[in-house]
């Protein structure tokens, strides 16, 4: 108990002492992405699996990148996917797209085209009817960036 308090005090001191300045911007945006995902999941744990996120690992043109997200689900009234969201790490905004599905979808597969400003990590998150969240993250290399700047 005493140790935990000491650690907390040390961290507070560290933050006050300007340790935050050492955090690189990439890590800051990764943190922003994690908080955007946590916000989508309303704080519920997000597990890895059940979901496949198809995107070319080497993107030649960031202006239109085809993505396909498929979720392993029977899509019945009792067990189906209610939502799929995609998050990025280094575009100006963390959100990419949020789909809302229902049991009438028949098949939990969605596809669209997105923009990527630079090489980064992308995360797809699926929300299931039983309240669980599943994710799959992919690292992509972008050779020609979408004109965002």
């Amino acid at each position, binding site marked *: 108990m005493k140790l935990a308090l000491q650690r907390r005090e040390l961290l507070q001191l560290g933050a006050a002492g300007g340790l935050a300045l050492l955090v690189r911007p990439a890590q800051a945006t990764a943190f922003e992405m994690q908080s955007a995902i946590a916000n989508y999941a309303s704080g519920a744990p997000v597990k890895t699996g059940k979901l496949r996120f198809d995107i070319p690992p080497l993107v030649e043109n960031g*202006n*239109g*990148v085809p993505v396909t997200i498929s979720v392993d689900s029977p899509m019945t009234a009792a067990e189906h996917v209610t939502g799929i969201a995609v998050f*990025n790490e280094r*575009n*100006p*905004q963390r*959100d*990419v*797209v*949020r*789909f*809302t*599905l*229902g049991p*009438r*979808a*028949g*098949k939990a*597969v*969605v*596809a*669209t*085209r*997105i*923009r*990527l400003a630079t090489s980064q990590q992308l995360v797809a998150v699926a929300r299931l009817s039983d309240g669980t969240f599943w994710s799959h993250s992919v690292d992509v290399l972008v050779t020609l960036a*979408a*004109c*965002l*700047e």
Partner: protein
Amino acid sequence: MARTLITSPATAKRGEVIELRALIAHPMETGFRPGADGLLLPRNLITRFSCRYNGDLVFSADLFAAVAANPYVSFFTVATDSGTLSFSWEGDHGFAQTETVALAVT
């Protein structure tokens, strides 16, 4: 009126899972890009897409700036009854467009 391209089967068997694809001509201006004069171009996005099957919402999507120009969405639905599929796009500056296609279920 923006041009749209919707791909859906004209007929389907009852219970069959059909693929629907929708594309609309739209610049999807992000609001982060400067124009020729150095000032930021105003944001002009489609923010919502929805598909209704005989009036029931079967699919919807919230689109953000990271969706490519001429937004394209592909998804699936179960053919239940003959009727109409309506695809709606809503966006900035009061943009709203709805297109309908007929589906015959045998």
